[in-house]
Structure formats: C-alpha cells, structure tokens
C-alpha cells in the first residue's frame, strides 16, 4: 500500500514561486530564498575550477590554491581578512573538489555585505604571500601525514584509485606528500590566473535578506569580474568498469580497527538511473539502522559499529560503496557477509514493502533536510549544478513514487557485478 504524502499549504517547499534566480552578464548565476525566522544568512556556491586541472606531478594544486585564497589580497592582509570576519562572528571557507572550487560562509544578516565583499576579494585578488605559502605548505604536509595514519581515509583513497583508474575521480584532491612538496608559490598564482573566472559560477544566498538586496550586494561585488586570459579545459579520460574483483590491503600499524570498502561504479547524477539506484541504495544500506547491510553486519552478526552503503554521483560518473569498520579478526567474515548481500540484491527484486519504506522516508524527510539555511542553500545549489529545475522539490514526490522494485533490480544489475568488486581494507593485519 502506498500513499502520497501531502505537505500543509502553510509550509510549502521551495519552488519557482519563492526561489529567485538571476544570471549576470559575466556568467554568474545567483539564486536566493529568504528566511526571516533567524537573523542569519548563508552563502554557498562554486567556481568551475577543480582538481581535474591539476598536473599529475603537482596533484593537490587546485586544493592548495583554494586553501590559499584567504591568505592575503591586493588590499587586505591575512590579519585584516580574519579580523573582519571573526569580529563579525562570520565565517568563510574555500575547498576544491574534482570539478569545482566551492565556498560557503555565514554571518548575521546585517553583515552580508562584509561576507560577500570578502568572497569577491579573495576570488579576484589573491596575492599568495610567500610567508603564508610556506606556512600553509607545512600545514598541508602535516595533514597528509595524519591522513596516512587514518584507516578510513586510506581505504577510501585506495578504493577510488582502483575504481576510477586514471580518471581524476581516482586521485585525492589534496594530493600526496611528494606532489605538495613540488608546488611553488608561483604555481598557485599562475593556476589562479589561468583558471579562475566567473563563467559558470553559482552563488546561493539563503536567510534574512530579500532578493533585491541580495542581488545588488552580489552584483556590486562580482558583476564586473572578467578573466580574458583563461585556458580551455582539458578532455577527461573515459571511466571504465573493472572486469574482475580486485583486493587490496593497506597496512597501517597499531590500529585496533580495520576499515573496509567494497564497491563498484555508480550512475552519474544526471542519469535517469540515479534516483532508482538511490532508492535501491536506501534499501541496501541506509534505511532505518542502515538497511540490509546494517541488519546483517551490525544487528545480526554484531561485527561492526559502522556498516552502511553510499551512492556518490557526480558529473561524469559515481561510485556505489559498502563500508564498515571491523576488528581485524572479523575482516574476512565481514567481506563474505557483504558480498553475500550484494549477490542477493541483484538476484531478486526488493520487496514492495522495503521499497515503500524507503519511498516514505525520502518524501517524509524532505522538510527536515530543509530546516536550516545551509540545508536549503545546499539543495538549491544541487538543483542548479545538475539542471534539476526550480520545481524539482515539488515534483520530487511523484518521481520517487514512480520507482518500482523491477526498476531497482534492473539498475542494480547494470552496476553491481558481484564477481567484479573493488575490495579495499586498511588497518593492522593480525
């Protein structure tokens, strides 16, 4: 039995009626939704610069550049930048992923001009002072040393490497110790000059400010940004599926727990398979106490505190992963249980009851994911990034309810091949 869930009219979901969208002549898209329930405001967005542009020998360059944007601009030094932000109780940060360099910030509504002004100055006029370059390089190298000891991060990085081969999805955005050591201050300045530009930039503003005010603050700060010297983007290699199972263990000494990732390629975010796979993923390892995987590995076998699945979908592809943290003595037992569940998952369709549970969960949790300004901003950003349309949330319920157990089986069989899995563990073998 399924039944659509209706929302009370007084609390409508964000849609074309209350999301304002504007495109600036230089290619920036601005989205806005107001919320006057709290005197705060968030901004969130990205520029189209990412680690796919990194030279292999300088992997981590986009990440390093993003992290260095706030170390000084033509008109403000590091101290002035953070004094202005922290005195206002505001925050702003940048980070690079494969396709984009994202930013997010928040402030009291009265300080939105300070926040947007700082965003624009850091994006447009960074000077990468030498002193801060060296200090930050030392910080990045330390975080990579810490990463090398982290079983969960090392298993995830190795998994991506084996799954995505020579596609940029297979490389860590924060690079490696030897590639970060090779990067110079000049590399950052050059990378910024060649690749930072306003075209395809998106910025979302949500909070206690009206659309007109938000638009004019952004136009003032970013409307005249141009970069005539940008280079064209390189072609990326195709992502090819693995044809037989690959098993890799990363030995890290002195660890009580081994982290395990088992997985395959998943659909792109824009693929019609995505929502179907997403509901399948919910049944497999998300719903309730982490779906079938949680039930088998944690609840029944008591093998792990954490055991669940995730579906990660990006522009050119994605991954479908099961992860768990287990005692080294139970590692093989956990792998066997997980592979067994994957086999069952592609043998028979999920039950209509399981699907109905996940459908109800997806629709019911929507207002919860939208309760904070950051939640709304993130949703608006995804609508724009993946061309979902401003009425996406309003049509969401119908799209979810249209998914059938047979469709999930078909899509799962397309991606999950139990004889061709990437299986990675990291920890101390006994």
């Amino acid at each position, binding site marked *: 039995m399924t039944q659509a869930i209706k929302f009370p009219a007084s609390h409508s979901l964000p849609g074309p009626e209350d999301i304002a969208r504007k495109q600036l002549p230089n290619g920036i898209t601005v989205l806005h939704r107001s919320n006057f329930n709290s005197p705060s405001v968030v901004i969130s967005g990205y520029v189209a610069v990412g680690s796919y542009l990194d030279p292999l020998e300088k992997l981590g360059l986009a990440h390093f550049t993003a992290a260095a944007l706030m170390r000084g601009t033509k008109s403000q030094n590091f101290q002035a930048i953070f004094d202005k932000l922290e*005195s206002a*109780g505001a*925050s702003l940060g940048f980070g690079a992923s494969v396709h984009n360099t994202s930013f997010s910030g928040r402030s009291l509504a009265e300080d939105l001009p300070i926040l947007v002004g700082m965003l624009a100055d850091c994006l447009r006029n960074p000077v990468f002072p030498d002193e801060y370059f060296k200090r930050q390089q*030392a*910080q990045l190298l330390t975080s990579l040393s810490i990463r090398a000891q982290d079983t969960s991060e090392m298993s995830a990085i190795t998994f991506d490497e084996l799954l995505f081969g020579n596609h940029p999805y297979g490389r860590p955005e924060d690079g490696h110790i030897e590639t970060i050591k090779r990067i110079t201050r000049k590399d950052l300045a050059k990378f910024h000059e060649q690749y930072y530009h306003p075209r395809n930039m998106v910025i979302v503003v949500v909070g206690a400010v009206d659309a007109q005010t938000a638009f004019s603050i952004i136009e003032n700060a970013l409307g005249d940004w141009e970069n005539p010297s940008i280079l064209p983007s390189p072609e990326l290699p195709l992502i090819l599926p693995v044809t037989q199972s690959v098993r890799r263990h990363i030995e890290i000494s*002195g660890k009580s727990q081994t982290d395990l990732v088992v997985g395959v390629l998943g659909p792109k975010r824009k693929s019609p398979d995505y929502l179907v796979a997403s509901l399948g993923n919910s049944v497999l390892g998300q719903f309730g106490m982490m779906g079938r995987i949680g039930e088998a590995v944690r*609840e029944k076998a008591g093998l*792990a505190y954490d055991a669940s699945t995730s579906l990660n979908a990006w522009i050119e592809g994605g991954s479908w992963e099961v992860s768990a943290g287990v005692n080294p003595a139970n590692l093989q037992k956990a792998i066997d249980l997980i592979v067994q569940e994957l086999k069952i998952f592609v043998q028979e369709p999920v039950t209509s009851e399981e699907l109905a549970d996940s459908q109800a*969960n*997806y629709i019911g949790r929507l207002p919860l994911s939208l309760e904070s300004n950051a939640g709304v901003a993130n949703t608006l950003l995804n609508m724009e990034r993946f061309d979902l349309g401003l009425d996406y949330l309003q049509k969401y319920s119908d799209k979810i309810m249209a998914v059938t157990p047979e469709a999930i089986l078909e899509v799962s069989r397309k991606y999950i091949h139990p004889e061709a899995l990437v299986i990675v563990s990291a920890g101390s073998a006994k």
Partner: protein
Amino acid sequence: MPADYIQEKLDNGLLVNLKEIHSAPIISHWVWYRVGSRNEVAGKTGISHWVEHMQFKGTPKFPQGVLDRAISRDGGFWNAFTFLDWTTFFETMPADKINLALELESDRMVNSTYLPEEVASERTVVISEREGSENEPLFKLDEAMQLAAFPGHPYRNEIIGSLNDLHAIQRDDLYAHYRSHYCPNNAVLAIAGDFDSDDMLKRIRQYYGGIHSGEISTHTPTVDAPLQKEEQIVVKGPGDTTYLQLAYRAPQASDDDFFTITVIDSLLTGPSSLNMFGGGGISNKTSRLYQALVEKEMAISVYGGLQATIDPHLYNISITVRPDRKPEQVLKSMDREIEKMMQKPVSQADIDRAVKQARALFAYGSENITNQAFWLGYPEMFGRYEWFTNYVEKLNRVTPAMIQQKMQEYFNPARRVVGIYIPEEEQA
C-alpha cells in the same frame, strides 16, 4: 534571549519544557536522563553508554527493528548520546507524526526487554565502537590525561568504558542500571517545533502521565580536590605527528566563573559553539594562541574548549606541533601568552567581540529546530533552562579585571596535566 517557553512538572516527577516554533512543519522531541559516566562505579565503566545502545533493542510493543522502521518510514531521524552527566534520546519528525515519538519514548522508558542474545551481540558492537576510537592517535593520550586529571572522580573514565569492563558487564547489570535511572522523576522531556502547547501537554499526559515515578538508585561522586602539581604524560605511538595537550581544572557550569572561562576560551583559542546541530563554527585565526603558535610557526593548529558539567571538569587545549619544533618549545611559547593575560588586563573591546561571536553562533543555531529542542533540555542536566537564556547576558557581565583574576586562578602552570604524543619510528 526571551524566556518564550512553557515548563510543567507532571505528578510522576517528569519535567516538561515546551517551545512552539512555527517556521517549518517539524517537531523535535528529546528525553533526557540524569545518568552518564559520572554515575558509574569501578568495574562498571561504560555501562550508561551500553544501556543507551540497549534502548534501541526493543520492547514487547516495539520489538527490535520495528522502532527504526517506524521512525524512518515517517521521514524522521533519531539518535541518542551518552555524556558525562546525561544520556539523551531524540526524534525529529514531520509535525503530524509526532505521536510516534511520544509513544515509543514513553514505552521504552520502562518496557525495554534486554534479551540476553541482544546483550551478547551489542557487546561486540560497543567494543567495535571503542576500537574505532582507539584508531585515533590521541585516544590513548586523552585516556591517560583524564586519569591523571581526576584522581577519584568518575570523569576520569572514558564514557565508552574500559575494555575489561566491557567484557565483564552482564545482562543483569545493564538491566539494573536501566531500572534505577530511567524513570520520569529522573528525566526531562523537551519538545520544540510546530505544535500548540496545550494540545501537546494533553498528549504528553496521555503517554507519559501513567508511568509511575521510580526509586532512583545512583552513585553520586565526591568532587576531587584541585590539581596540586603539574603532571606530565608522554604517550608514544605510530605516525609522524607530534601533539601537545593541556588540561586545567575548570569550574562547573553553575559557577559564575564558568562564563569568565568561556570568554577566556574565546580569546585564547577562538569561540566554541553550544550548537549540537547545524550552525558551523567561527574560525580562530585571530585568537591569541593561534597568533602566538601558528602564526609564529610553532604549531600547525590549536584548539581549546570546556564542557558544561555538574562537577568541575577540564579546560583543554590541543595543539598539533610543527614537525620542525619540539613540544617543549611550543609549551614555552604558549605559557608566555598565558602569562601575558595574567599580567595585563585584556581590553573591553576584546570582550565585546567575544559576546558578538556568541550572539552570532546562537543565531546560526536557532535556524535549526532540532538544535533548539536540544538547547531546551541540555541546560537542565547541569542547571536550569535559564542558564541558557541568560548565557549571553552572563558573558556581557565579564570584565577585564575578572579575566585577569580568573586567568591567575585557573591557568596556573603548577596545577595542570601536560600530555605529549610522540610518534615512534616504524619498526622495520
């Protein structure tokens, strides 16, 4: 902050705090119990946290698996936390589904079954949770520092418990701990969101009103004397990174000094947030220790903070040392900065800035209904809700002279625990 909430005590002793918020069709429902690692005795460490896990294993009415399915189907999310002084369970639900939360929380306040086979499988899950924490290089250092900082008080123990105790605790121990702490007269119910208070009170009486008050049998610890000396703990382990940590005895939340230390924390290592959900933080790059250590190329990062607790707990500072520096050097620089604040009063502008930061963090936290419901119950665990509503005002009353005086009182280098994590060369 206005006191825009309703408080009522049911005949069975259950304290109820309600706050109507009509910004979204959501209700967040929290039950708080006055039990945590503070109430544990030797041999039974970790029992409160394990009991929290067992509360998800079902009752005759909602057997295991039925609970989480019911919540998730309605699009809700739920979780639980065990801390030093308290254990809490929450559900955030679409407003029209809130009866489910009332029904299941009132049910499992008294009717959880604690089946022996569930206890057995949960033992390995809890041990696995501990093993996950042990993977963090600082876990062993934290554990050793706490033991040194509290000679007798149970705050010395890890909330998750010692491995020995996790192997030794039995089903009847867990059940007895549950029965002697989970009763309406040892609990606070806090609900915030899209409801009418009169109607909600009626429902609360319907679900919780019939539960009998219980006989609370608990361990109330004696407060440890202030630290008498500087103690140094060195832990060696894998990796390439050196860490330096400090622990000073801090005042309990009900002490006015707590607010002075909160402002000191903001000045030393940046503002800490009371938000449990959402809100994010404010960076700490203009804080004194960041300036003295990271900007001076002594450290990679520095953080600090204190906990609001019933008994005096700790003010902790955690520093990641630069690979080209020795922890002793870093400690010296840090002490010089602390010494300055003991010698010379800070400016009023510094305090005003800390207050503005606290206001901003509250504004961010109040976007989120789950977080507002958390605030509605949390201060009741170590004080009253007014502790929270008066928070910013109390910070406002802190003066430069108070900061100087409390620096001298609480940050004496002769009364602290210094912890150093030294990476060992890998054995070939």
